């Protein structure tokens, strides 16, 4: 008797679903070592949604690929990294063991559902493949389950759609099909890499709603990778902001939006249009400049070239991540000062920030202002 996804439930107590400590993933290329992820740590609780935010090149995608060990051959997870899934260490386990976890316990969906599905096989074929891989079912049972999953994922006429090829479905449908695949085995974690970026705005909302309702019903944990703060506001419980391969801010979602402490996050917040903004007082401020090359990283703060509050100290010494306020980490020498200011207020004076005594990680005593 086939049990459908509707009967899945992830137990609410137990170990933390995912615990990542000091993850470092480096790529070996002709031009040097790319430090795509350089010492990132985070936790994912049961039934929780963690959003990883950053620009392209910040390392957010590589982080999630590292969890599932889906990295290309040129990449390596460095020693000292630890990824604990329900208390079980994933770094260094064998390939066959990892294959049992992939797809069965941790699932991943990707940004572009058109290229993520094999064009020469039907949706049903690929869905049933996922089911039969981890569950003991014959073809008929798997097909029944597949149809039920498609239906749960919100696809109309699932019995017909199951024999369609990917290019016959719309973008939203394809993403729903991917979600159906991600639920096929009562998976516990869903990693969604920019799941809505390639979709229309209205469809975006629908997909997010689907993910939310599934989380309520089944209790899966979600890692949501995105650069869109609107999506974060809607879905996330905690937020991890990444820049230049490192963690720059980490807090609960409300705390982050209301009391952000890192200039980059400020930049992200400021570049979002708000309905209630005072038109004359506040202008949309895009963050100038380009993301850093991950090979030629400066010795100081990675955000230095683009930061509007930068000081000399920032170029010399990397601001280590610290817990400025309980359960709110930031990596900036001036986090304390920023904490007391509103990211959306009319331009915070540079002077204010510069004059404030910087709490420099490592406790070195330096006179303010530095060399000019």
């Amino acid at each position: 008797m086939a049990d459908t996804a509707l009967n899945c439930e992830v137990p609410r107590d137990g170990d933390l679903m995912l615990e990542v400590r000091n993850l470092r993933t480096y790529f070996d290329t002709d031009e040097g070592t790319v430090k795509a992820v350089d010492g990132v740590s985070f936790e994912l609780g049961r039934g929780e949604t963690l959003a990883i935010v950053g620009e392209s090149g910040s390392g957010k995608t590589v982080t999630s690929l590292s969890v599932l060990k889906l990295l290309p051959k040129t990449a390596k997870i460095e020693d000292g990294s630890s990824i604990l899934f329900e208390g079980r260490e994933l770094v260094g386990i064998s390939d066959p063991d990892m294959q049992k976890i992939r797809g069965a316990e941790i699932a991943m969906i990707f940004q572009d559902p058109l290229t993520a599905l094999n064009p020469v096989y039907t949706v049903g074929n690929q869905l049933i493949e996922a089911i039969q891989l981890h569950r003991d079912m014959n073809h008929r049972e798997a097909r029944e389950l597949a149809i039920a999953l498609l239906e749960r994922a919100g696809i109309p006429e699932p019995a017909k759609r199951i024999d369609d090829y990917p290019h016959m479905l719309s973008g939203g449908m394809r993403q729903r099909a991917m979600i159906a695949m991600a639920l096929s085995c009562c998976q516990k974690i869903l990693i969604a890499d920019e799941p809505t970026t390639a979709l229309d705005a209205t469809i975006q909302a629908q997909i997010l709603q689907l993910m939310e309702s599934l989380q309520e019903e089944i209790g899966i944990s979600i890692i949501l990778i995105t650069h869109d703060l609107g999506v974060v506001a809607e879905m996330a419980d905690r937020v991890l902001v990444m820049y230049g391969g490192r963690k720059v801010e980490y807090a609960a979602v409300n705390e982050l939006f209301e009391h952000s402490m890192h200039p980059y996050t400020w930049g992200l917040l400021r570049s979002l249009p708000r309905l209630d903004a005072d038109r004359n007082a506040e202008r949309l401020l895009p963050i100038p400049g380009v993301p850093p090359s991950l090979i030629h990283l400066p010795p100081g703060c990675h955000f230095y070239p683009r930061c509007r509050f930068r000081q000399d100290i920032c170029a010399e010494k990397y601001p280590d991540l610290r817990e400025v306020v309980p359960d709110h980490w930031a990596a900036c020498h001036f986090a304390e000062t920023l904490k007391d200011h509103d990211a959306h207020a009319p331009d915070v004076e540079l002077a204010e920030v510069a004059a404030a005594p910087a709490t420099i990680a490592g406790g070195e005593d330096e006179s303010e202002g530095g060399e000019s």
Partner: protein
Amino acid sequence: MAGTHVKLIGSFLSHLRELAPFIIRRIFYSIGVVAFVSVVVFALVSISGDPLANLRENPRIARSDIARIEQRMGLNKPKYVQFGYWLRDSVRGSGEWSTSFSYRAPVFPIIWDRFKNTLVLMSVTVLVCLVIAIPLGVFSALRQYSKLDYAVTALSFFGLSMPVFWFGLILQLVLGFYLMQALDLRQPLFFTASMYTTGFEHDWLNRARHLVLPVTTLALATVAGWSRYQRSSMLDVLNQDYLRTARAKGLPESRVIAKHALKNALIPVVTIVAIDLAYLLGGAVVTETIFAWPGMGRLFVQALEQRDFPMVMGNIIFTSVLLVVFNLLADVIYGFLDPRIRQE
């Protein structure tokens, strides 16, 4: 398992039915193409002056016969009228324009006869090449930059740069003649001419020994081309996102490659194979000449040397039709294999 095969045939047939209007349009287009080819060739041929020059010099043919032929071919009429005569005779399969000067017999049966020989040669060649080239291309792509890959690439370059006729000659010399001397045999181990030794028509071993050298000659360039193409097609596929999805589902790497990558990688190669097959079937003129293989290609060369224009024309038209048919076949199969194209 049989069930899937029946399903496959069934879906191929329904695919054909869907494509019926497309196929019909293509057939009309193809007729146009063949017409174009025949016009061009006829124009060339008619420049050459008196087509019957050889015949006139032949003492065994009476002047009255020649006059009769001249009249039936319309040689005193303008060129485009002659073309019309040729068209009529070719369609009918008889008449002066469709009768070989050298053989004094209708052109198409002779061509067909020789075609069967070419078919033998080419079928064996294609089979051998497929068996070698596809795995070579696939594994080169899977182990990119490895020694195997470099070796295969180097070999492909070599094969593509080597003039087929020279390679054939060298093979004749080395594997035909020198080998025979080295092994102290009375007959070459690998024969260097003809399809079979007289009297041994049904001895398949004899036939096989005759096939080895010509097939090898043709295979070098063909394998070189196909394996390169397969390699690049496979490399393209290996970069695709859907392979990552397959791995994320927990599929073992061997399944990812064998099921998801391979089918996508084979599709473009099918087209190339079909088209090359058409060219090969047109008669590898040079190989057949060197190895005295009684096929269509050799027939063509002989016809040219003998100024046997009806045969030349008939041969070219036959080849054109073959090419067109195989192009169509290639498109149909490609559409069948790649669902994205099917809807056209």
